[in-house]
């Protein structure tokens, strides 16, 4: 490399359009500043801490520091018996407890090798799809706040509240349900659930459209997100991205389709990927669009499930729950599609105790966030915020 001289400072910045912009500042010694973002910062979505090396507004490198919400899930999983783990799973990804429980129960049921009644499967899919919409709404709302739009956030929370009340009606809790149990669910749907759920779907469709008009079609929003934080598909796979993040990079990969667990193979839904007309594939906008489209698909799934769900008089949702959950010795890796990606559980059982020997949660946010360092390189501070928002982290799941 050519010697530039002491007083000359060169910085190269990749502009959103991909053209390299070389700035030569003469006779100006520009120092790097360490900017500490978080753990208490409005846009780190909880207690993430980013240590940014900045040169003016340009972030040279942002190093994430985790563990501010490390609640020792894996230790607890080794200390309590299988049904007792479910509440801890709830508290891991607190925005999508149903989906997390679902993933955990899939893993344990695979190990136990038990058959689940068909109605239970429908109930599980319906509640977890409701929770997926709720979770995506929070993701979209907080993303809007990150970009300075306050109203969409409140619209999202307003509509989320309806879903919470539906789920509360079913399970008795607003956020952390402990509803999906190993081998069953805690309660059957209450009387009239179907009507109210359908009513909600009818109410929510136009509201989702309104949200889209307010936020996604806003030119400033598009300007702030398009071309920001582009992640090519192969790198995304190498980083282990999954869920909306990976689909945002254009990979048509959804565990609901690929693994085909539960009753998803019978259902008709699209795996949403951006088509590249509105966004650059792999940028923040694509990830946002995937979430917006998935809300639509989840509504379709709910409608189909409500339609096809077998009605049974005097149905006991706890009938299939084993009396004593003590799996035979073995190992399992079970996973399901969480709103944030693949949530997997690696469980090791020794066959003797009712507690797992080892239970590791493969958290989707943890993996998605690991690309932060690479994504943030050479971005502006506002873009950094935009990227963190589009990753949609839940610190409870990152740190476990």
């Amino acid at each position, binding site marked *: 490399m050519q010697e530039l001289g002491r007083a000359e400072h060169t910085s190269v910045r990749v502009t959103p359009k991909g053209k390299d912009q070389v700035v030569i500042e003469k006779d100006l010694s520009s120092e790097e500043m360490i900017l500490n973002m978080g753990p208490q910062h409005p846009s780190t979505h909880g207690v993430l801490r980013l240590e940014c090396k900045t040169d003016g507004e340009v972030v040279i490198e942002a190093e994430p520091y985790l563990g501010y919400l490390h609640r020792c899930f894996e230790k607890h999983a080794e200390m309590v018996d299988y049904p007792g783990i479910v509440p801890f799973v709830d508290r891991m990804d607190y925005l999508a407890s149903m989906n997390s429980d679902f993933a955990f129960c899939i893993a344990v049921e695979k190990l136990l090798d038990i058959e689940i009644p068909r109605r239970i499967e429908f109930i599980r899919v319906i509640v977890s799809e409701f929770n997926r919409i709720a979770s995506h709404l929070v993701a979209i709302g907080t993303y809007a706040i990150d970009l300075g739009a306050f109203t969409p956030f*409140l619209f999202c929370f307003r509509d989320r509240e309806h879903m919470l009340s539906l789920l509360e009606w079913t399970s008795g809790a607003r956020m952390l349900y402990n509803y999906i149990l190993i081998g069953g669910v805690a309660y059957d749907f209450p009387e009239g659930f179907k009507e109210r759920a359908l009513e909600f779907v009818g109410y929510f469709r136009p509201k989702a459209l309104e949200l889209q008009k307010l936020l996604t079609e806003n030119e400033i929003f598009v300007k702030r997100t398009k071309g920001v934080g582009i992640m090519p598909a192969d790198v995304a796979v190498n980083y282990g991205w999954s869920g909306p993040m990976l689909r945002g990079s254009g990979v048509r990969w959804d565990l609901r389709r690929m693994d085909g667990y539960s009753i998803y193979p019978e259902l008709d839904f699209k795996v949403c990927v951006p088509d590249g007309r509105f966004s650059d594939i792999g940028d923040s906008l694509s990830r946002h669009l995937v979430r917006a489209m998935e809300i639509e698909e989840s509504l379709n799934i709910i409608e189909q499930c409500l339609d096809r769900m077998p009605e049974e008089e005097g149905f006991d949702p706890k009938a299939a729950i084993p009396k004593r959950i003590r799996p035979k010795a073995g190992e399992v890796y079970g996973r399901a599609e969480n709103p944030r990606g693949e949530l997997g559980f690696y469980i090791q059982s020794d066959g003797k105790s009712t507690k797992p020997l080892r239970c590791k949660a493969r958290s989707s946010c943890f993996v998605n966030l690991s690309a932060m360092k690479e994504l943030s390189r050479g971005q502006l501070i506002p873009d950094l915020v935009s990227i963190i928002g589009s990753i949609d982290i839940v610190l409870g799941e990152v740190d476990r």
Partner: protein
Amino acid sequence: MNASLNAWSDALSELHLLGLPVGLVVIAAVPLVFIALYALTYGVYGERKISAFMQDRLGPMEVGKWGILQTLADILKLLQKEDIVNKSADKFLFVIGPGILFVGAFLAFAVLPFGPAFIGADLNVGLFYAIGIVALEVVGILAAGWGSNNKWALYGAIRSVAQIVSYEIPAAIAILCGTMMAGTLSMQQFNLLQQGEYGFLHFFLFQNPIAWLPFLIYFIASLAETNRAPFDIPEAESELVAGYFTEYTGMKFAVIFLAEYGSMFMVSAILSIVFLGGWNSPLPNIGPLSLNDWTTGPVWGAFWIVMKGFFFIFVQMWLRWTLPRLRVDQLMHLCWKVLTPFAFVAFVLIAVWEIYVK
């Protein structure tokens, strides 16, 4: 006509009670009382209520009837708070910053005509003075941000200075367009020139086919000058915690807060004076219905200018609660590559119109 209007204020200013110039005090005090009332309660309260209305909420409800005492409670509380000055802060700058901001924002009110009779000082360079004094805020912001010795505050201050200084240019050129139409810099003269029996048709916005362009440019630039969304990057909550006032507590913070609302009204008032006739009634005389005459007068004048100011503040709030925030470079792009060239174009076109067509 002018004479009759001024006669009213002259008569008032000569009103002496017990040898005291009560009339003069009233003339000077009414705008100030208005400022205090407006800035202290209705600006902040209105913003909270309007945002609540847009977001399906209620807004302040419990403090006083419909929460109208909310802002008063806020100010009283901020007065009681501990006043923290950082150990490592530059104490002089830290203290002087909010002062400059507040004084800068409210000094401009001196030349603001609140009606045919109410004006603090009818300077012959009133408009120039107003723009200049509003721009003084930059110094206060920089002092506040630098003095805080906080990285977020520094970022906020630097962003803010870059933004305000840049947006001065299109704003000033847009105002110059208005000045060319009027041929004066006196605020009161602007109003008098836009008077007439056809109401709004006499406003400069409708007097010239190109006038909407500087009007729009000034409105956008004024958003940036007062750090309102979508240009609120200096205090971007999600990026910079609270921008240049991150470190301020108690009353200093309240002062900054109020200064913001003061300058919001100021730019709205300038906009309405230059392009929308200030205190003139927009209603025209239609045959026997002489609406314009009925709605003209000292009290009506104050009413109209306040209403026009409120309208623009409402639009500012509306935008704030609808739009996301621009990025720093996009903001500069908008200023230098869009607004400034268009402002020049408008300037030339209006000059041509004024000289050759009119």
